[in-house]
């Protein structure tokens, strides 16, 4: 006889809320790499061109944001020590984003700065508002709001700032909202998204998950609050300097603040790694740790870009900066964390109520580990090859790098697909 319900246990988020985001994001990654292959000639022109804009928004929204939406709906209860406020808002977030993103990307690709981009941007903003309301309501209904929760809350507010400002920039092409051209504000839009949304969120979630997966007792909230302050401060300072049109030399201050924050985060992960209880580190956590090291690359690219400004003289540096962020750091951490979260969600779906009634596979057996390893090596080859291609401006090298990234994306999609379609096997 079995007791009906166990008290004191927090229910996890419904898998139906989470898994569509993973599937969508995996397709987004594949589309992003294919677009990259057909756009290698855009690496030496100004980044405001149809292909680069389409690729950037595919990687930022369809890939990075959608998978973070999915994972954060699952992980938010762990971070805030509460429950997700609304499944409905999560479904609405998915629905509006899933429709809005391809419209926006298509708008960029055909370079229609009018209605197509406006509709896409509006739908994405609605999705982000639903997400923001859900995150904030979930966080403030919880009794505990630790430093990790504040990272997620602030990142979400910055995300809305990014998409809303982006929508204003789109509208500015048709209606005079600003007294300047939208192109003049691209740096603000980009860094609101990169630093405010992606970096803050990844640090907030990563600083909780990496020690958890390593079974490490290391924790240092004081350092994490310093990182929180430095990153937010760097972003606000950058925006002020940009709006005040200060000389280039002043930008080294927010860049230094960001660099210190990244190094502190790296040190945090290293200390967690040093005192870990679990000695063996799996490929997925290794990938995530590699991505922490990759965070430094775009900062160096930015310093190089600033030191040889004006960037018009060498537009490939700006491309290198964006590539290191979206195809480097962000992609690496997603490749790792996907297979540290999604198999467990699927396993819970399939075996939660059947455990011990029969032998069940482990979550790690829900995807093909060999395919994962090959994907990781091919990805690293593609990433490094493409960087060499950007620096040498060699089309053949760029194409080879892009092909490797497409292969990595196909292998990733394959593993996502076999995990999502897993049928319970009880022996």
């Amino acid at each position, binding site marked *: 006889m079995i007791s009906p319900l166990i008290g004191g246990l927090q229910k*996890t988020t419904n898998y139906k809320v989470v898994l569509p985001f993973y599937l969508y994001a995996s397709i987004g990654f594949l589309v992003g790499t294919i677009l990259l292959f057909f756009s290698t000639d855009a690496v030496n022109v100004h980044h405001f061109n149809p292909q680069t804009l389409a690729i950037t928004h595919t990687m930022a929204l369809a890939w990075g944001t959608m998978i973070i939406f999915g994972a954060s709906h699952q992980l938010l209860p762990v971070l805030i020590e*509460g429950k997700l406020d609304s499944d409905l808002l999560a479904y609405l977030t998915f629905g509006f984003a899933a429709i809005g993103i391809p419209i926006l990307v298509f708008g960029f690709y055909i370079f229609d700065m009018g209605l197509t981009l406006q509709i896409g941007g509006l739908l994405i903003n609605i999705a982000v508002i639903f997400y923001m309301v859900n995150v904030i309501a979930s966080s403030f209904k919880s009794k505990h709001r630790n430093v990790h929760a504040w990272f997620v809350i602030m990142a979400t507010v910055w995300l809305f700032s990014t998409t809303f400002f982006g929508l204003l920039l789109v509208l500015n092409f048709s209606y005079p909202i600003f007294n300047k051209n939208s192109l003049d504000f691209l740096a603000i839009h980009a860094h609101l998204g990169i630093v405010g949304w992606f970096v803050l969120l990844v640090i907030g979630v990563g600083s909780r998950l990496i020690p958890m997966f390593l079974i490490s007792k290391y924790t240092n909230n004081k350092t994490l609050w310093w990182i929180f302050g430095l990153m937010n401060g760097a972003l606000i300072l950058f925006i002020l300097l940009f709006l005040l049109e200060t000389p280039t030399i002043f930008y080294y201050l927010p860049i230094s603040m960001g660099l210190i924050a990244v190094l502190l985060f790296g040190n945090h992960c290293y200390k967690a790694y040093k005192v870990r209880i679990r000695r063996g580190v799996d490929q997925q956590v290794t990938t995530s740790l590699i991505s922490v090291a990759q965070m430094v690359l775009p900062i160096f690219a930015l310093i190089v870009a600033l030191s040889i400004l004006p960037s018009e003289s060498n537009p490939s540096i700006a491309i290198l900066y964006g590539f290191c962020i979206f195809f480097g750091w962000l992609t690496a951490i997603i490749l790792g964390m996907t297979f540290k979260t999604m198999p*467990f969600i699927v*396993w*819970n779906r399939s075996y939660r109520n059947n*455990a011990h009634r029969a032998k069940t596979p*482990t979550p790690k057996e829900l995807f093909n580990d060999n395919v994962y390893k090959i994907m990781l090596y091919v990805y690293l080859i593609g990433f490094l090859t493409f960087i060499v291609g950007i620096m040498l401006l060699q089309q053949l090298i760029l194409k080879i790098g892009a092909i490797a990234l497409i292969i990595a994306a196909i292998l990733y999609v394959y593993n996502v697909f076999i995990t999502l379609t897993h049928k319970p096997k009880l022996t």
Partner: protein
Amino acid sequence: MNLNIKTNNQEKCDHALVDLYNVYDPEVGLNIVDLGLVYEINFNEENKNVECIMTLTSQFCPMGEAITSDTTNSLSSSFPEWKVNINLIFDPPWDFSKISQEGKEFLGH
């Protein structure tokens, strides 16, 4: 081996542990006994009731439902005619010191 699991019936507790050693934390890959999640197993002969007082590594552990469900099934398997109650507590909270020596060795120590 000192597991520090309290009980009012050592013989039945040992019987329960045989099956509980096969209940795993799916993320860690270690059984819940060596992981130190089981605090107490008590038996009420009169009501045919077995109560397992246990914890999780975190109250918000995403695998919590699966682990407690597995534990329930395990105890039901050991005591088919008995009612199983899982009493999940978080005070005292789980920490690394609760992992058994065997568990630490499994984790590479």
